[in-house]
């Protein structure tokens, strides 16, 4: 009946009603800083809208009057709290956009448990049933804000345009009320859709039916409407609606959008941090001796990969220069004196046996692999156990590669991959003969500086 009557309202009537309402509110001493929507003060704050909202209710329900003041504030807070909670649940919902752009109030309002409680209390005063339904609803909404938003807007639309749907809404009027503040958030959208939406609000105060008492929901509509004029972004609603989905899409992609440079920076930063830690640790062990420091350093060094070494490294030139020198030395000096590359048989007897002290991470394995005189056996020794692990891995991968490529045949350098062993030891303080494989290959303990007598004896006996 009320809805049908709405069509008969003329603009004049509406205006009158509005004015009358205004007057009412002023008499009640309501805290409504700004006039009604059309009072010519476009910069309306939200609180005023709530006041508007409350106006009709009070008109009908005197008991509510006392709690109205608190209600406004609580409502306002309520508007903030559910949003904030939904924010925490899923910060990427479009709600955020709206909140940021459209309504500063909500953003400033922090979601506090007290806010919710006061709100619910106020509701209790007015309508217990409503409050329970509202809380229930809120819970649902917080779980899936996006969905809820859609639903709410749908209801609103139905409310405004279709009387029959509005009736379904009657059951949970305060629910809408509680969402009224929240509804503000979506105000732009609503406004943009149908300018005639004002009418329902104007009418409502006069609605005679008890049913409409619950229709405090209209208030929700009001807030929507009112802030809209104040909000400069008339296109705000559309923007929030249009822009949010793409943003959603963008966000997951953000991680993948890190450029190589950024990645490198991150890596660098991490490395710096690790260096920091390492440095501190190093200072701590400085007293424990240099070998410890060296060991710690090479253990802490990170393997960054071959491609990084060749492309991103700042000292790639130096690296390749060092590698070139080392391969040159290996190429030139590793073969025996009697080695003749032209007619050297590939028998095992001519294979070199190499002891690499300080092999590090096995970076020289390939150099040895491509040595002119084939390397038959390689022993790598280093003081840093982590480096030795790396070397072992590298050796294994080398073998795998060559097997894959040549079916277990000759490697790329024309040589079969040598056997290798890696051991952790400090060659400066301990005797290499302690390593079983080294002693198996053959070491003479009776040599070296300070053992000249034995050494001469060795020479005298014709050596090994």
């Amino acid at each position, binding site marked *: 009946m009320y809805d049908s009557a709405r069509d008969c309202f003329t603009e004049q009537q509406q205006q009158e009603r509005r004015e009358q309402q205004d007057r009412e509110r002023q008499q009640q001493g309501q805290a409504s800083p700004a006039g009604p929507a059309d009072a010519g003060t476009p910069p309306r704050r939200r609180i005023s809208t709530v006041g508007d909202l409350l106006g009709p209710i009070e008109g009908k329900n005197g008991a509510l009057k006392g709690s109205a003041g608190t209600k406004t504030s609580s409502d306002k807070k309520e508007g903030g709290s559910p949003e904030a909670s939904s924010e925490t649940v899923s910060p990427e919902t479009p709600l955020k956009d709206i909140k940021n752009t459209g309504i500063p109030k909500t953003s400033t309002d922090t979601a506090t448990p007290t806010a919710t409680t006061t709100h619910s209390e106020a509701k209790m005063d007015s309508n217990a049933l409503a409050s329970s339904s509202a809380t229930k609803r809120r819970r649902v909404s917080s779980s899936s804000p996006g969905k809820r938003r859609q639903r709410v807007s749908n209801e609103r639309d139905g409310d405004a345009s279709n009387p029959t749907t509005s009736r379904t809404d009657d059951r949970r009027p305060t629910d809408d009320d509680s969402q009224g503040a929240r509804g503000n958030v979506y105000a732009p959208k609503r406004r943009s859709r149908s300018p005639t939406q004002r009418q329902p609000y104007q009418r409502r105060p006069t609605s005679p039916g008890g049913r409409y008492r619950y229709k405090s929901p209209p208030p929700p509509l009001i807030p929507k409407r009112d802030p809209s004029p104040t909000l400069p972004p008339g296109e705000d609603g559309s923007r929030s609606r249009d822009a949010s989905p793409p943003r959603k899409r963008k966000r997951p992609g953000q991680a993948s959008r890190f450029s190589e440079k950024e990645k490198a920076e991150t890596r660098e930063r991490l490395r710096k941090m690790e260096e920091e830690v390492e440095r501190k640790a190093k200072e701590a062990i400085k007293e424990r001796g240099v070998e410890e420091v060296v060991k710690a350093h090479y253990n802490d060094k990170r393997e960054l990969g071959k491609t990084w070494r060749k492309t991103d490294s700042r000292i790639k030139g130096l690296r390749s220069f060092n590698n070139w020198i*080392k391969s040159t030395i*290996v190429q030139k000096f590793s073969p025996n004196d009697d080695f003749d590359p032209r007619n050297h048989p590939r028998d095992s007897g001519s294979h070199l046996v190499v002891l690499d002290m300080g092999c590090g991470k096995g970076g020289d394995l390939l150099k040895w692999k491509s040595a002119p005189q084939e390397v038959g056996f390689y022993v790598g020794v280093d003081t840093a156990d982590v480096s030795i692990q790396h070397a072992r891995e590298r050796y294994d991968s080398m073998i795998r590669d060559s097997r894959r490529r040549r079916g277990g045949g000759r490697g790329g350098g024309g040589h079969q991959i040598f056997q290798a062993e890696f051991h952790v030891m400090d060659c*400066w303080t301990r005797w290499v003969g302690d390593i079983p494989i080294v002693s198996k290959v053959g070491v003479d303990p009776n040599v070296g500086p300070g053992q000249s007598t034995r050494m001469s004896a060795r020479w005298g006996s014709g050596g090994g």
Partner: protein
Amino acid sequence: MGQRRRVRIHIMRLLLHRKLTFILSFDVVSMMFCMHYAFESEQKCRNMLRNVSGALKKGGRFIGTIPSSDVISARVQGKHMPADSPEKEKLDKSEHGLQEWGNSIYRVRFAEEPPKAGVFRPPWGWRYSFFLEEAVEEVPEYVVPWEAFRA
């Protein structure tokens, strides 16, 4: 007796590494950028040399790379500086050689003031901390005076 031991080892080797039948010792010992860590003290040097010579067969090769002491000497003497630069004059007046140099990529800093003449004697214990971006971070190393080492 030594002969018998050798034969036994030889047989073991045969079984373990068939391809290495004729091995008596290592043909090559290589030390790539690590021997300078041994020059902390005389004892370490001796251990190192003993290890090397013990592992090498007769006529075997000891190959490796180390930081050049010649370059370090030159730097310590400030030879890289322009003759009329204030740093150079300051260095000339001081009793010691240059203690620290480098750039954004690398840095060398002597723990103690190096000799002005750039002659490191005794040949061990000349400690400096070396920083090379991405490779070596402030690790203590020691000068390997090449001539002394060769001698």
